[in-house]
């Protein structure tokens, strides 16, 4: 008993200390805010690395003919761009937001498992060092697409082992992050905060965390089979040895489709926080929003076949996967309608987070429409593997997930730093991003419909015009993101003091707004009251 008490005291003292000085603060970080910051900075760096690869892709596609890079290097760029953006930029930034905001929103002093939290972050720089270093080894980086389909992926050299090890590390990191979110939400909510009173961002993350735990091991299994096929003479996917290359696609997309929702559900949560604030009106149908997220998550497990219609599938399976995929449009529609109803008869103002949220609403919905079109099996035969698909998933990932992340940063940045940022610069960043993202991706619908396959470094001359437009949009979008960094750096350094509520005049709801800005290093050491 006495011993326990001593341990408690030590623990207590530790928590109330100032942050450690220098590098130790970050290396040994157990504070959710520090770890959240590291996740966010890391993902921003990865966003620029992945973005630089996209710039190379768009530069090569600016004109027909090969001007800049070898086709093999082009394939490395498309593959690495996807891996870096998915596993390095989008996923870690959501984990960073979860780290920062979930304890603040549920009234907890920290994440439930702070040391595991540290570990799950610090795995990532190593994972990406391994992955990115493949660019400099003989034979180059993975070039078979981020989906790593055998036999093509297995034709590679040393990158096979390095990429697979990196994917294992990323998976481990994600699973630990997810466990932390679930344990925190389940055990550390302030007294009185029952699950239905919990903010939508926490809800979306809770469901996302279950998805992560369910599917990351599936990915690990798939890539482990690739590893043994390549190095240990097994024939899981080798047709000559009695294996089945299609089985990889099934296993991969059983991970891959829930993965898509892992990258969008937290975005739904963010939008559900921001729209009510700047509409000065509570979220419409909050409970049905939660059911909608849960049903999207459930459905995501039974739609994987829609990635493989052209690969040959029994008739019944084609019809089943078409129906189940189309069904996802129903809960997604409910969400869009609820968001629209939230704005209806509200009192809207257009601060940068709201602008990004509105842009999300329009452009994500466009991505949803092309998603419904892609679900229709017979026409999917025309769309599949073309730029139409590229346009679709970039619409849901860039003005979808990425804009939601930017909206979240603009929403909570004053809470994190204690300063308001430059509204003018942020709005400029918004307008440039929204205009260029459409110039970049909208013409890709036309290219795909007109017959341009994806993942090609050079194209027939009839695709020249739209490719040039798309590339111009790409360069514009890439350059605009420098403004994002400028806004953030300025805001961290100083600026007008932000109040506790930050968005005075609007109606931000949630426990995070009861804390002063910046949120103190240790918050909610005593549980807040929930009415």
């Amino acid at each position, binding site marked *: 008993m006495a011993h326990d008490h001593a341990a408690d005291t030590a623990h207590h003292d530790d928590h109330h200390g100032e942050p450690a000085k220098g590098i130790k603060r970050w290396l040994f970080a157990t504070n959710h805010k520090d770890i959240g910051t590291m996740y966010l900075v890391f993902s921003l760096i990865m966003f620029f690395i992945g973005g630089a690869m996209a710039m190379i892709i768009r530069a090569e596609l600016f004109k027909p003919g090969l001007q800049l890079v070898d086709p093999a290097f082009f394939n490395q760029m498309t593959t690495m761009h996807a891996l870096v953006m998915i596993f390095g930029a989008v996923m870690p930034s959501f984990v960073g937001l979860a780290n920062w905001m979930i304890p603040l929103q549920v009234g907890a002093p920290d994440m439930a498992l702070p040391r595991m939290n540290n570990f799950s972050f610090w795995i990532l720089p190593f994972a990406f060092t391994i992955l990115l270093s493949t660019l400099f080894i003989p034979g180059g980086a993975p070039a078979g697409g981020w989906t790593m389909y055998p036999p093509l992926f297995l034709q590679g050299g040393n990158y096979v082992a390095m990429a697979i090890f990196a994917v294992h590390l990323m998976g481990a990191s994600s699973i630990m992050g997810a466990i932390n979110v679930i344990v925190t939400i389940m055990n550390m909510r302030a007294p009185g905060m029952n699950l239905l009173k919990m903010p939508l961002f926490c809800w979306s993350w809770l469901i996302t965390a279950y998805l992560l735990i369910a599917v990351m091991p599936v990915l690990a299994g798939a890539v482990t089979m690739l590893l043994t096929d390549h190095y240990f003479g097994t024939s899981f996917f080798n047709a000559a040895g009695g294996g089945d290359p299609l089985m990889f696609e099934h296993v991969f997309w059983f991970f891959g489709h829930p993965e898509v929702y892992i990258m969008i559900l937290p975005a739904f949560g963010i939008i559900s926080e921001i729209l009510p604030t700047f509409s*000065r009106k509570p979220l419409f*149908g909050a409970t049905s929003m939660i059911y909608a997220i849960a049903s999207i998550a459930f459905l995501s497990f039974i739609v994987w076949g829609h990635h493989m219609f052209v690969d040959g599938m029994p008739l019944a399976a084609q019809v089943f996967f078409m129906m189940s995929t189309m069904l996802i449009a129903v809960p997604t529609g409910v969400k869009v309608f609820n968001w629209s109803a939230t704005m209806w008869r509200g*009192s809207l103002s257009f601060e940068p987070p709201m602008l990004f949220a509105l842009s999300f609403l329009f452009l994500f919905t466009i991505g949803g429409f092309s998603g419904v079109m892609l679900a229709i099996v017979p026409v999917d035969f025309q769309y599949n593997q073309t730029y139409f698909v590229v346009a679709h998933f970039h619409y849901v990932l860039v003005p979808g997930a990425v804009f939601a992340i930017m909206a979240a940063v603009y929403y909570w940045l004053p809470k994190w730093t204690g300063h308001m940022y430059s509204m003018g610069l942020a709005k400029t960043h918004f307008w440039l991003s929204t205009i260029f993202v459409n110039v970049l991706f909208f013409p890709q619908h036309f290219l795909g419909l007109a017959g341009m396959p*994806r993942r090609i470094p050079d194209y027939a001359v*009839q695709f020249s*015009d739209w490719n040039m437009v798309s590339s111009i949009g790409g360069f514009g979008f890439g350059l605009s993101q420098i403004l994002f960094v400028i806004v953030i750096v300025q805001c961290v350094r100083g600026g007008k003091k932000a109040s506790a509520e930050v968005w005075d005049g609007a109606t931000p709801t949630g426990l995070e707004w009861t804390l002063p800005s910046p949120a103190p290093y240790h918050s909610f050491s005593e549980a807040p009251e929930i009415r």
Partner: protein
Amino acid sequence: MRVIRASDIDHRISRPRGFSGAIALCIAALAAVGLIDTAGANTSNGYNLPMGVTDLSQNMYALHMEVFWICVGIAVVVFGVMIYSMVTFRHSKGAIPDTTMVHSTKVEIIWTIIPVIILVVMAVPAADLILKQEDTRNSELSIRVTGFQWKWQYQYMDAGEGVDFFSTLKQDSNFARQLGSGVDPKTVPNYLLDVDKPLVIPSGTKVRLLLTSMDVIHAWWVPDFGAKRSAIPGYVNELWFKVESGKEGIYRGQCAALCGRDHGFMPVVVDVRTPDDFKKWVEEQKAASKQAAAPADVPPPSAQVLN
């Protein structure tokens, strides 16, 4: 060898058809800011699926347009409501929020049921078309198509039994596409979409392709036929199409599945001829291969080495 008429070279990987208001508006907007040169429009300014020359591709096109217009309709309503809210309910105009409006079971049931109905409307014709697509019975000509890195092999069965050849990117394209070749792709006819030896098929005939691969996964695609299917090692995938009589000509497509370094450089070209011309072509091929086989008394090079 048949002389290729100029009219044959009017092939389309896609042809702009079926204007949509929304898309036209977007193009007009882009043209207005001078981003594209619509004045010099040619077939390369395609922005929609081709109608194509088979029953299947036309059905696909019709379904595509149906689903597209439904999406446009929904978009008009949903975006209309959003834009109306953004214009009308502005804080700066002194709008007072109605904070009691938080939930309505009736409305929520309505906007769950209506999308379900719309989806059923789309799914029924789609399921119908899947049945048609998958029905490879009673085909009149079967061709085995094998993907290689980076070329296609065509082996004829039935009436073409014995015809067997490879089809690779044509030499002028292959030269022009090299890094730093200095050749302007616009000067190369059918840049990247031409082969040394196209697949020849008869019109008005149900052709079945049996697709497989010898190395990695490829995908055989001709947009005008509405025909795309993966060629996977260890699998034989089936695909059929029937080009209407009177639509003879040359049709082009590309490999649609990432298959390595030269994935972008293995086009598919199909030369559709009348059944009579096709028969003649098969005879020519057989005669040519007999001729080629004639001096086969000389042992093949590998055997010489062994001796």
